[in-house]
């Protein structure tokens, strides 16, 4: 095998990966409706499944960087800091009060939670909520390293999202008070 052939193979492989990293999704609705035929049982909602479109966002640099920008612009940072928490809980650790799946987080953002998390439905659209969901998961290392943000535009604080250790999410078992 000559050097040129190796070069092209490597380049092609890199392009394959980076295509996915850089793809832009112009669909701006929420989870697509699954058409249900008469007499058929309801199709399982595949939107948040492992191969579903939400997981694609966690492999996509554009979605994650948009999520990071929105995280500041919508004042998430005011309550959760850069993931360390403040008024609200930390987001960079392994503990999740209301669950760590993309579906749980998406629901927390849009509908709020009764102990202080305000609902953002009507303030942000569903695409933005999806981008935020992906970014929030990247704070504890759940997103793909090659797509997660590598730098802050502000005062250096936490390690960049693409180099944090992946936390294994677990439910919150602390006493309530």
């Amino acid at each position: 095998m000559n050097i040129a052939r190796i070069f092209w193979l490597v380049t092609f492989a890199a392009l394959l990966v980076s295509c996915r990293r850089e793809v832009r999704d112009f669909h701006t609705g929420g989870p697509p409706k699954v058409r249900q035929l008469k007499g058929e049982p309801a199709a399982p909602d595949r939107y948040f499944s492992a191969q579903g479109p939400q997981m694609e966002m966690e492999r996509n640099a554009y979605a994650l960087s948009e999520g990071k920008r929105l995280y500041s612009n919508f004042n998430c940072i005011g309550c959760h800091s850069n993931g360390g928490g403040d008024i609200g809980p930390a987001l960079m650790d392994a503990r999740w009060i209301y669950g760590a799946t993309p579906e749980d987080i998406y629901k927390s953002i849009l509908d709020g939670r009764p102990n202080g998390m305000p609902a953002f439905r009507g303030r942000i659209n569903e695409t933005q909520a999806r981008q935020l969901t992906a970014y929030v998961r990247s704070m504890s290392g759940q997103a793909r390293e090659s797509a997660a943000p590598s730098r802050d535009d502000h005062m250096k604080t936490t390690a960049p999202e693409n180099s944090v250790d992946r936390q294994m999410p677990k439910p919150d078992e602390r006493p309530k008070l």
Partner: protein
Amino acid sequence: MARAQSPAATDWPIAAKDFSNQRFSTLDQISQTNVASLKLAWSFDVGVRRGQESAPIVANGTMYVITPYPNILYALDLTQSGKVKWKFETAQPDPMSRGEACCDYVSRGAAYAEGKVFFNTLDGQTIAVSAETGQQVWRRKLGNIHVGETMTMAPLVVKNRVIVGNSGSQLGVRGWIAGLDINTGEIAWKAFSTGSDSDCLIGPNFHPFYDMDRGKDLGLATWPGDQWKLGGGTVWGWISYDPELDLIFHGTGDPASWNADVRHGDNKWTSGIFARRPDTGEAIWYYQYTQHDLYGHDGINESVIADLVLESGKPARKVLLHADRNGYLYVMDRTSGEVISATPFVRVNCSKGVDLKTGRLIFNDEKKPIMGKVVRDIAPAAPGGKDWQPSAFSPRTKLLYLPHQTLAMDFEEVEVNYIAGTPYIGAHAKFYADPVSPGDGSMGAFTAWDPVAKKPVWNIKEHFPVWCGALVTAGDVVFYGTMDRWFKAVDARSGKELWRYQVESGIVGQPITFLGPDGKQYIAILSGVGGWPGVVVSNDLDPTDPISAHGFGEAMKDLPKYTGKGGRLYVFSLP
């Protein structure tokens, strides 16, 4: 109903003991010579493991303890070592209020007057409860949590007015103070900290000492556009009262947001002090400690009332002693609002002093925040040279005992968006131990300050900020607690440590003393770490993020090694 008993001079009926806010007790059974044998008399689990910033209060043989959210009020029988007499747990603040309180779910105390106990809830209610039975007398909803308005301060009852104020400058809340009818809770008056003169209860009798505070509608004119509506200036701190002058004195919080570029102007009437009539709320004078605040320096710290001979041979002057967040200790004439002196009590580099002719704070342009640029080593940091933790003054030693912190910060203004009910901050801040003074990594201090000589007499360094109030007694003993779980007694004249006791969790409360029904002197304190620096523990933050806890994450990253959460009352006495 029989006329309610008035509290005795040896009781402790409000958080600050009395109107002067001196936190001085004439009790002297516990003194320098015997304090070393102080022992635990009894303790009580309050059942809430969040920041316990409140002062227990004592009236007529009963102690009343208010907890952080969910704001449970206990009445403990002092003839039976604190046996629960009754428990009021129907305050039931809206759980969503927990997402609106900037600095933990704290309460700073209840107040006893005329047979009733008054307190505020996190979701913005003021509640009056019968001191005898624990039955609700009235409740009034004053705050709107949907715009971030909470209530954490300890009410002050003056004549027939229950005086309360709101919290939430960090969420762009517009500050106010209100006087409620003691029997019904009806709002008798409400004065805002921003807006038109009529909104601020400024009228023909308003005579500020300095030109800078004079003019029509400055609460509008010193703000761009409608920014005053989001202007902060909340009244979440201490109120003192001089019955002779018939004036209450209260500070106002910092202007919102921390990004000062969105609010050019002096931002009246934030970060200052008002003197008002308690009956009507009418403003008599005002002084602005910090014009157009740049660093989150609220003006809500206590103003201690004292009469001091400032120059020998001259008569004593009626003064206020106020250690401000901006790092200066103000001695003011409380009849006029004149600043007699303003002396730095910590390292200050973000300003160069106070011009006593104009009253203006002289800012240091080198430390002025710039959008998108990190300005390093700003002293004092946003929590200031001293925060809400109240000082104590002894008429015996003529010293002011200051619990405080020695922190500097890095600060970066960033773009800010207003979304109702979410933080309106517009800056990243990172606090750390002041690298110059003291420069040894310590972040807290307890200082005895001579307000006449304008200098410290002694100083004790502490590893963490001293986020606990001070108490001084006629036994010449001073009490305070630390975030690393020590409750301490020191000699009021020398600062020598005389006694210490390790409690369950860090102390951010207010020590008190009282004469028990058995004729013995007791000392009481709540333990339970929390508040702005302690939220690192009480809300399980991840301190690898240095800007967590609004900038305290870096400084407090070791706190979990020293203390866990807690909520326990400790009562001490001599054996």
